[in-house]
């Protein structure tokens, strides 16, 4: 009997971050937070109100914010810097690289509004390359939780994780389907959400819900496909991924990210290194996004449950 995941009340993942940050800060006085004129958008305002002396408004000056965070980390604080994924990575890549990663500073980068689902603001703000940028940095941990509850848990886990963390989440309201407390969520371990015999979908972030829907659609057509949530993109859970590669040679990845340098590359790396498999990718196909509503963009750029289901069918066909 397969689990039936249901939406227990749609919420935005960024709010999961806001709640998690406040909770983490109540437990640990070492936690401080820095914002770059997007505190309310990134849901850091509750923290700022509760702990004004531990909150630093940096203005629209992200490079300096990263450095100040590195300095606070040097003093033993645990800084969370919050801004949009674009400004948290591409804009400050060198600062993240030198002042945080190379310097071994325990800074948490909370990146909201990642991916196409940022919506109407368009391609300037729709960061689709960040997983690649961040996972390329030695020492960086990259986490992309799948819903509101998991983003809260990931924030709490990031606060306790030793070393820099890139925490990726999004803007829009999306189905919330994982439990409030979830012992199966651990940074660095994949999460098997649905078992399946004929294939596996590895998904991350907003695409996990889509992957679940794809699996249910396929189930109705008599095809049993597993869904594995790869919320941690670095360090890679090689063992957890190989276990599924060994079971099937129908392998699909789904991510709200460029087709290069993201989850598709990660699963392909594991496949080519440990257990050779074809990997079919559902991702943004080397193009920039555009303005639109989140669901319109997901449809136009091929990131829906039916696109994933088609990819699974293609993988099955190719196997024959």
């Amino acid at each position, binding site marked *: 009997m397969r689990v039936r995941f249901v939406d227990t009340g749609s919420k935005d993942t960024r709010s999961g971050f806001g709640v998690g940050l406040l909770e983490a800060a109540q437990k640990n006085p070492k936690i401080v937070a820095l914002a770059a004129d997007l505190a309310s958008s990134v849901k850091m305002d509750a923290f700022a109100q509760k702990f004004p002396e*531990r909150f630093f408004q940096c*203005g629209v000056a992200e490079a*300096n914010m990263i*450095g100040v965070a590195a*300095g606070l980390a*040097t003093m033993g604080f645990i800084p969370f810097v919050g801004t949009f994924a674009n400004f948290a990575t591409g804009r400050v890549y060198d600062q993240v690289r030198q002042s945080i990663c190379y310097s071994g500073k325990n800074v948490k980068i909370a990146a909201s509004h990642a991916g196409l689902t940022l919506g109407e603001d368009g391609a300037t703000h729709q960061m689709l390359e960040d997983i690649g940028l961040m996972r390329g940095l030695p020492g960086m941990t990259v986490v992309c939780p799948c819903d509101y509850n998991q983003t809260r848990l990931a924030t709490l886990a990031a606060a306790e994780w030793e070393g820099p963390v890139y925490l990726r989440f999004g803007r829009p309201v999306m189905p919330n389907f994982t439990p409030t407390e979830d012992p199966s969520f651990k940074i660095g371990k994949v999460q098997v959400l649905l078992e399946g015999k004929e294939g596996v979908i590895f998904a991350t972030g907003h695409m996990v819900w889509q992957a679940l829907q794809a699996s249910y659609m396929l189930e109705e057509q008599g095809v049993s496909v597993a869904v594995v949530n790869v919320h941690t993109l670095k360090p890679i859970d090689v063992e957890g991924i190989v276990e599924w590669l060994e079971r099937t040679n129908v392998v699909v990845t789904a991510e709200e990210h460029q087709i290069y340098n993201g989850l598709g590359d990660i699963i392909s790396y594991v496949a080519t290194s440990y257990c050779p498999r074809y990997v079919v990718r559902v991702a943004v196909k080397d193009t920039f996004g555009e303005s639109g509503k989140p669901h319109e963009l997901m449809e136009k750029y091929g990131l829906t449950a039916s696109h994933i289901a088609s990819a699974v069918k293609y993988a099955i066909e190719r196997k024959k």
Partner: protein
Amino acid sequence: MEVKELERVAAQIRRDVVRMVYEAQSGHPGGALGATDILVALYFAHMRHNPSTFSAAGLGEDVFILSNGHICAAWYAVLARRGYFPMAELSTFRRIDSRLQGHPATKEGLPGVRVATGSLGQGLSVGIGIALGKKLTRDPYKVYVMIGDGEANEGQIWEAALFASHHRVDNLIVIMDRNYKQIDGDTREVLNTDPMEDKWKAFGWEVVSLKEPHHFPSILETLQEATARCEKGKPVIIIAYTTMGKGVDFMENDHRWHGKPPNSHEYERALRQLPCTLADY
């Protein structure tokens, strides 16, 4: 430490710098020689710090960050001679398996270094973060950050300048190594940053000029003045009008010595001007 003794230390550090860069056949002698006196004054006279109990956090002591990391040959020599690590290690500068990286780094665990610098413009922000951390922990000690004047081309420096002023980071003293030289030439030709002092004043900083940055009584007096201006709601910057390549006549005021080692002939010429006042490493 007496001025005479500081002068002896500085003379030896300059000799160390030239030997290190020559032996590595790479490095940045010009800026290192120009900043030597200030670094010696900070580490041997002005700052309150304890080399034997170095920790990254630097609680209960003054903290120094070298934002213009490329001039680290002088900083390494100062740290070694001040007791942060064995002097013999200076001979490993820029070599494989060394803790003395081409630009300062923390990965290899060199005592004295708290953050990697080299890609310019970043160390000031980190220093501000440490200064804020000192305020949060009620640590009454100060943060010193050296920056280059070429480094002030970087936008992040001005982001940091705005931030420190806005947040009243007044336990911070920045020292700008103002030698008017950068890699491609005179700063006024590459990207003019004049009027430098007015810029910092306009950004809300206390500005102190150091006109004689190679004269220890002047350096120490300026550092004391800067310290006296701390804790009054504004960050403080000392603009130090240094001479690049100071102490080696053919390197002085010549931007071409930003990042190249001397050849054997130049090396001999330089060493003749740099007496061994203590003992070579």
